């Protein structure tokens, strides 16, 4: 008997649970099934962006079910979901500033669960009465003074809430170069206005700016650099033209300019390529100051002729310049003493002064070569008969570009 009772209780419990459960299910379904015309909002119209949000009122609503409503609103930067609020017996939706301050199309949808009650869209327009800044961009920031090159000025004005302004809004775009001020009127298209600024033909700094109503942009500057140089001449200057291995010759350019007479930027590198008549070649470089470049080179020790050319790499080169260096002596003074000591010198220069120390003197004897250096104009060599057999030899002496042969007898 007891078993039966407990059995019945058990089943009753199950049945009741089931009933309660199904009731709650039913309630849920009833709640989401809102009549399509139960709620109607005052359809928002196109309007200007605002940072105060947008309030949307209801034309008709009922106080019971409004908590099931959701307002899905999707602007330029994304979507959010809003809940209607009942405030002082007035049901309204408040679109927050994160949506209302960005211009563009706003799409909205009033839903209750899976039912869409109303949907629509409206436009948020930029606020042309309250502007914030004119953002200017200019580039390239450095251009060349010629007929081909140009820079570009782009203006993106924005309203106080950082929205692009509508097409056809007028922007004044200005530039100033060496006192000349030019202002052009441009219309905004796709959010920006732009202007191509051709390069002036003289070097300097070009200053740009834009204004829209009373709002101005920052100043932006473009540097104008000289064009490619035109061919230039080179000259030399030196105290004398003797090949003394001591004097310094200065190679210099005339003022290097472009075709419009603009002086090359300081620091333009000029390379002087030097070649002599013995097929030796070398180079020296100098950078320009005020268009001039100076380079220095040491005179040769032997008479020779140089061919010099100035080159600005990749741009231009000068005509060739020939420089001839004369020998400082006609013959080599030579003496031989004590049957073993050879003395060469004193070697003297063009004034009769002694040549600098360290001028090389080359001796050739019996196929072997000895290099000596001058000291006080003289170089000597003592033959050691233990090494070289006593005999009569022809000795060849070569210095300062002169060669002579003497006969000596070693004992």
């Amino acid at each position: 008997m007891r078993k039966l009772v407990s059995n019945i209780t058990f089943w009753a419990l199950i049945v009741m649970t089931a009933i309660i459960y199904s009731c709650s299910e039913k309630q849920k379904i009833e709640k989401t099934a809102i009549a399509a015309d139960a709620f109607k909002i005052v359809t928002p119209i196109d309007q200007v962006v605002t940072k105060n949000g947008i309030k949307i009122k209801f034309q008709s609503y009922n106080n019971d079910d409004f908590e099931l409503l959701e307002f899905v609103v999707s602007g330029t930067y994304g979507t959010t979901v809003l809940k209607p609020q009942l405030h002082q017996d007035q049901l309204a939706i408040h679109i927050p500033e994160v949506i209302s301050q960005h211009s563009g199309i706003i799409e909205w949808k009033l839903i209750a669960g899976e039912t869409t009650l109303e949907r629509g869209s409206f436009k948020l327009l930029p606020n042309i009465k309250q502007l914030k800044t004119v953002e200017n961009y200019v580039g390239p920031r450095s251009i060349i003074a010629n007929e081909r090159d140009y820079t570009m000025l782009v203006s993106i004005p924005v309203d106080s809430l950082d929205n692009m302004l509508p097409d056809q809004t007028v922007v004044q775009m200005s530039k100033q170069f060496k006192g000349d001020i030019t202002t052009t009127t441009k219309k905004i298209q796709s959010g920006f206005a732009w202007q191509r600024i051709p390069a002036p033909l003289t070097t300097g700094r070009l200053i740009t700016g834009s204004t829209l109503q009373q709002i101005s942009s920052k100043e932006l500057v473009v540097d104008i650099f000289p064009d490619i140089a035109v061919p230039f001449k080179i000259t030399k200057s030196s105290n004398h033209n003797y090949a003394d291995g001591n004097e310094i010759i200065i190679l210099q350019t005339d003022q290097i300019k472009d075709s419009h007479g603009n002086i090359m930027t300081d620091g333009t590198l000029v390379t002087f390529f030097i070649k002599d008549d013995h097929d030796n070649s070398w180079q020296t470089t100098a950078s320009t100051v005020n268009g001039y470049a100076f380079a220095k080179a040491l005179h040769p020790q032997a008479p020779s002729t140089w061919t010099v050319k100035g080159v600005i790499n990749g741009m231009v080169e000068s005509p060739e310049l020939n420089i001839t260096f004369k020998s400082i002596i006609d013959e080599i003074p030579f003496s031989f003493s004590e049957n073993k000591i050879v003395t060469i010198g004193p070697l003297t220069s063009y004034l009769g002064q002694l040549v600098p120390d360290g001028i090389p003197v080359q001796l050739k004897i019996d196929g072997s070569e000895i290099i000596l250096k001058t000291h006080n104009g003289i170089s000597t060599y003592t033959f050691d008969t233990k090494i070289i057999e006593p005999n009569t030899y022809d000795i060849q002496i070569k210095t300062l570009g002169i060669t002579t042969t003497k006969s000596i007898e070693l004992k």
Partner: protein
Amino acid sequence: MKKNKLLYRSFIIIAFLAVNAVIIYGISQVIAYLNTGADTSKMLHLDLARTDYYLPEVAWENIDNPGRPLEPANQLKIEQDYLDAWYVKNLALENNNNDGVYDHYTESAREKVNALIEYNAAQELQIKSTTLSHNISLEFYSADGTIAVLTDRNVTGIEKIYHNNQFINEREFNEDYRIILLLEDGFWRVRHFEKLAINEVETYNHTIPLEIEMIKGVNYYPQAHPWDTFNEAVDSTLLADDFKIIKELNLNTIRVFVGYEDFGKANVDLEKLRRLKILLDQAHKADLKVMITLFDFYGDYEMKNWTLTNKHLRAIVNEVRDHPAILAWDIKNEPNLDFENRGEEIVLSWLSQTIKAVKKIDSIHSVTIGWSNTKSALHLENEVDFISYHYYEDIDDLSASHKAIENQTSKPVVLQEIGLPSYNGFWTLDGNNVYDQAEFYGKLLETQKRDSVNYLFWTLYDFDHIPTDVAGSLPWRKNKQAHFGILNSDGIKPAYLLIQKD
């Protein structure tokens, strides 16, 4: 006593070894840690290879502009950075954090994105979103290459709104945008964004009829390469031989499976595509129609990867859609099995968008989904062109089950998989032998004829090797899966003769 001593001794030795092992492991971890860190070769960002994470369909409608010609390298860079801007915004709104926003939005634009993220985070809203196609026109590119103004028309995509991870609403969109990008720190960053217009979302309501009167077919894998039809060893001769066998059974259709990873995921392997075409050519020669099941072994349905699956899909469908052998596209095999792990709503929305992606590029061939049972068969009934389901229950109930589905839809119903393994070995208690299988096919064919059922049986061959990722490594599953064929390596099974007679 002696035993104890031995025990202690061995315990001490083992403990000693263990302590040493732990110390050596510890030291090696410290050394490994000290060796990680700044790698000088990474300083220049030279080895940052892009991975596939966001590949919506992008068409450049126009790059002519009054500012400056757009070089291909810069075009690519603008496209990538612009798409990344969408991607990071999508992720930011989904996770309500601003990771990556810094890199892709300028200071003023960043504020706007961050403000919305903060607002949504406070409301506990999560918005999953992805774009699927972009049509970009370059309006302006400045002379110094630092400003680009784009108009992006018909940006299509989908957005799903969740509140506290509870799904609220879904929004499909097709919108036009204007974007001003600035080149900053080597990134093209969004300076301005403006939604210009909302366009009609394209819908595909037209149902494409099945172009075959009665499907009689087989789910096909080559005998030596089950679940690997596009293996390089499967050549045209092998396919021709198999298709000849199928044709001689008076069948008219085969169903083949294109693996998502097997075909190279987002970047489809051209060699695999070539083999797919060879298969279609051979099927056409044998007068067989082919139902292609896409996305086999694909299991991630997350919205952030939809652009990748769509790219995969476009590559395959665009390549073979004009082939005369194609009968239909089967979006996915048995996706209802993923409902539990991945979430029914997530799986269904992926299927739904993938159907649209197919219909966008192929308006001739019908589309279906191969549901694994009769219960799931009517999911997305509105969107598919015909209903497909698989039946592995009692054969005696087939007729009733099939009719039940037919009564609920006006669209054709296809029994896409049915079969019985003839396996009665060590691992089964009441397995079936080849005669049970023949009896099963007898009943099947009888029902099929009486009720005019479109059907494809599973499968042609018994397989010697079942890949582990198909049936797992448990032998009773594997062995069952291996004996579904009507032919085995020894020759024909009795069921074969029945079908042949039919």
